[in-house]
Structure formats: C-alpha cells, structure tokens
C-alpha cells in the first residue's frame, strides 16, 4: 500500500500534557481519510506537526516522502487547520491573491474559479472582517485547494456551515478524491458526515490511535440484533447486560452464531417477538465504544439499518 504519510512514535508534550503520545500511523495515498477523536485527542496537534508548524518532542514522520517541515514536501500539501483567520482588512479575493504570491503564484483564472467553486464569488470583494465562520471556512478551503495539492488536510471544514453548505463541501471532498486523485485527510466531529465521505478512519484518544481501518469494516464489526418484543422487562431479564433499550425495542449485542439460541431462549421465557433484524453499528457507536465516551446517560444507542 503506497502511503502519503508515515508516522512513527510521534510525541508532543506541552509541559506535563502529552498532546501526542507515541503516535504511529500510515495514511494511504488516495481516497478520503478521516481522523476522529474527542476534543483534545491530538488531531490539530498532529496536523500542525505534519505541516512543520510545531516541532515534535520525539518520533518521526514523513509527508509525501519528505521529512516534516521540509518545504519541498509541504509545497505539495494544502491545509486548513481549525477555523481559518485572515488579515481583516483584506477582501476574499485579495486573501487568495496574497496566498497565491506566498505559494509561488496561482493564475488569476484559477483564483476566480475557486471563489466560485466554494460559493464566495458574490462576496469576493467584501472584507473578511465581516465574514461569518462558514464563509471563513469556505475561504480557507479555497486557500488550501487553489494550488492543486496532492494531499489536503481539512480540519473541521464544515464547522459553522449551513446544511446546503455542508452538502456542497461533502461533494467537493469526494470529487477531489474521486476525480482529481487528491488524498484528503479530514477531521470532523460530525461522525455521520465522516461515515458518508471517508474511506478509512483513525480514531484518536489522548494522543494515540486507538483504532484504524476501513469505515465499512469498523461499522460491520459492531453488528447487533434489534428486537421488538413484549414484555420488555422479561426480555431484558433473559438477555441481561447484553441488551440495551432503544425506544420500545431492544438492541442485543449477540454474535450471528448465537442468534438462533438467543431467540429460542426468549420464546421459551414467554416473550413475544414481533420483529428481529440485524443492524450495523454506525461510526458514532464505534467512536463512543472506542473512546470510552458514554454520551448522555440514558440516551438510546443509535443504529443504522441494513439487510440482515
């Protein structure tokens, strides 16, 4: 598997805080790679380290074949880290012209095309000091992409955007990977968005990768049985801690091999089963189980329906 980023034992400490804790990760070329993790998991620290903005305390990494901080390698990257900010006295168009000079020159037609593509053509001559967060995000994405990089890092690109904007951004990200062959690394707290747009994900917690793989593989491993039954209390008594409530149904963490025996045990206990079907875990379930985050106490566990 050809990789664009190789990270070995990367550590970054701020005083006593370990923002990255011996992180090891390989990111393959092509497709959209998601980085997930709760706040403070180390996502932005990793991005800043890969871009050479901060120096690692230990470990090493290569980006596009070059060591981190090597301008020859980072010139092939585009990035938007956190909510982008720009000199407030500049207009959106001027920001892109300024950055095009900084990045070795981008044709004017290309700048205009990107303003249009991110939906800022009409606001191109407005000063950015009056921009909403969503507009700043759009401008940040244009700035990251206008040099036609081989690798793009987008940190929360849809933050502050309205639903149509989110949809446009999702389509743009997919098209970058599918049509232009760009490798996109995406960090987002919107797990459904990540699930829809990413091919692979890594879940971070406390500066470490705790799980990594194809989205389809990760969600398949969390397959569970959804049972509409009465009475619920009796069914819960049979299933014990393997079941959780999901509205007026039960979600049972039961392997396929044990499904028949489980249903038989429920019937023998006098439980009426109206419906039984398999559901796959969504990324949110995987995320919560991997990070140990339980969410709001008593909140139902969500699932994504699929044939089974």
């Amino acid at each position, binding site marked *: 598997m050809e990789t664009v980023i190789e990270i070995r034992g990367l550590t970054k400490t701020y005083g006593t805080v370990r923002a990255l804790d011996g992180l090891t990760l390989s990111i393959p070329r092509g497709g959209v790679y998601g980085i997930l993790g709760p706040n403070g998991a180390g996502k932005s620290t990793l991005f800043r380290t890969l871009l050479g903005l901060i120096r690692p305390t230990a470990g090493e990494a290569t980006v596009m074949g070059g060591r981190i901080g090597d301008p020859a390698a*980072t*010139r092939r990257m585009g990035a938007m880290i956190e909510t982008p*900010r*720009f*000199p*407030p006295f500049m207009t959106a168009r*001027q920001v892109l012209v300024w950055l095009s*000079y*900084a990045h070795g020159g981008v044709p004017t037609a290309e700048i205009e095309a990107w303003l249009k593509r991110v939906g800022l053509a009409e606001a191109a001559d407005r000063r950015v000091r009056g921009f909403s967060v969503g507009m700043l995000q759009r401008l940040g994405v244009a700035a990251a992409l206008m040099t036609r990089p081989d690798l793009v890092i987008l940190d929360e690109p849809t933050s502050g955007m309205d639903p149509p904007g989110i949809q446009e951004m999702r389509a743009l990200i997919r098209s970058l990977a599918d049509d232009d062959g760009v490798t996109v690394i995406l960090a987002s707290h919107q797990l459904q968005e990540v699930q829809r747009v990413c091919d692979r994900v890594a879940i971070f917690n406390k500066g470490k990768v705790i799980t990594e793989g194809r989205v389809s593989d990760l969600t398949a491993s969390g397959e569970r049985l959804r049972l509409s039954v009465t009475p619920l209390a009796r069914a819960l008594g049979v299933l014990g801690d393997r079941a959780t409530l999901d509205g007026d149904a039960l979600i049972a963490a039961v392997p396929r091999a044990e499904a028949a025996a489980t249903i038989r045990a429920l019937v023998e206990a006098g439980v009426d089963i109206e419906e039984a079907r398999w559901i796959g875990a969504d990324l949110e379930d995987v995320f919560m189980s991997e990070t140990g985050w339980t969410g709001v106490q008593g909140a139902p566990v969500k699932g994504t329906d699929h044939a089974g």
Partner: protein
Amino acid sequence: MLVDALKSEAYRVSRNRTAVFCSVLLTPLLFIIGGVAFHIITKTKGDALAAKASLPAEMGNQPVNLADALGFTATYGANGVLLAFMLLAAATVYAGDYRWETWRLISARNGRPWLILGKIGVMKALAMIAMLAMLIAAFVFFISQAVVTGRPMAFDLTDFDLGRFLLLWLLSLIRIVQYGLIALLAAVVSRSLLAALFVPWALGFAQSILGGPLTPVIGWAPTDWAAQLLLPGLAYDTLKAAVSPGPMPMPEGAVMKAITSLTLWCVVPVAASIAWFQRQDLSKE
C-alpha cells in the same frame, strides 16, 4: 522562496491602508502642514519687523534654493516623528501574522528564514518610500516658503555634495530599518503586536533620556564603547557627524565604534529573530 515571501508581504502591506498611511504619508503631511503654517507665521512677523526697522526690500528677495530639500531630507529624514509612525507599520508587518493567526497559512510552504527576510525587505522598501515622501514634502516645504514670502525659486546644486548626500541618505535608512528590527525581535519573542510597538518606543524614549546627559556641551556624543554599543542613536549621530564634519575634530576610533554598534544593532536582532522563529512552535500564533 525569498521572492515569494517578498511578493506576498509587499502585496499584503499594500492592502493595509492604515499601515501605509501611517508609515509613508502621515509624517510628510504633518511636515507640509507645519511648514506652511511656519512660513505664514514667520512672514507675518518678518513683515512687521521689516516695517519697524525700515529694511530695504531686496534683503527679503534672496531666492529659495529648492536643492536644499535634498540635504534636508538626507539629514533629517529619520526624525523622531517618522520613526514613531514607521513603528506602526513595523509592528503590523512583523507581528501581524501572530495577531491574525496567519502564520499557519504561509509558514508551511516556505522556509522560515525567508519569511522573516521577506518582511525585513518590505520594511526596507517602506522606509525608502517614506524617505522619498519626505523628500517630496521637503520640496513642498521650500516651494511654500517661496510662495508665502514672495521670494523667487532656484535650483542651485553648486554646494551639493552627492557623496555626502548618499551617505546621509543611507544612514537615515539604516536608522529607520534598525529601529524596526527591534520591533521584529520583540514581535517574534512576545508574539504580540503591542510589544512590537512599545519595545522600540521605550528604547527610543530611554535613548532620549540617556542621550542628553551623556552628550557633552561641546557637541560630540560620548565615544566610549559602552555608550556607543548601548545607544544606537548615539552611534547614528556620530556617523552623521563624521559624514558632515564640523569645526571640532572627531575623537579617534569613534567612527569604527559607531559602525560596529549600528552593525550589531542590525545583525543581532535579525539573527536572534530567525533563530527564535526557527524553533518556535506555532501551536497558537
């Protein structure tokens, strides 16, 4: 790489009207306004005095030599007012990327030393433009003198010494740039626009306090190593005096000490800023 840094920084500064106005236009404008007012007042007072003393009219008809604007600008271009306003631009150029959190947009794709050198290059260009604007203001000053007083104008280069003019012009430029380099170091170390503004101002204030008592009545700045090294303003005055020698002989070795001082005050802030910036984490600009 340096070209990219220069072009992008120059473009950004050119869009910052406040910085451009304060650094390049404000001092010359103040100079012109003050100059015209000065000529009107002196003309009024002078007419009254001439009438009282019954002086012959031709005494007030000496031509105003516009070429004096050249020497005037070269000698007084790096005046305190210009330095103070240039610092506004210097603080914006050197600390702007910390204030606006824009280092993350430009530093990944270029070498950090180039980015610092690009900013210094742009400040040098701004200093040069400010000096040219001062030159234009000086011409306006002398023209307004001729207009207000009714004296004829002339452009007489008989006493003009090109070599001295260029040296004084260069010294004034160095003085402006050197002051800005203190702002650079303060910006990189503190990541603060206010520090970039006030540290050089504080240094200038300290120099004006210390420089006076240290300067003997005879006119020479103290030429011992400590004074020259600690106070770049004294070194600058020494070199200016060396370029335009007066009746008093210059103490031996004074020029070398002054050159050493100004060189150190230029090189050390640049080297320290680049070294510091190279190791700086831009986790939050």
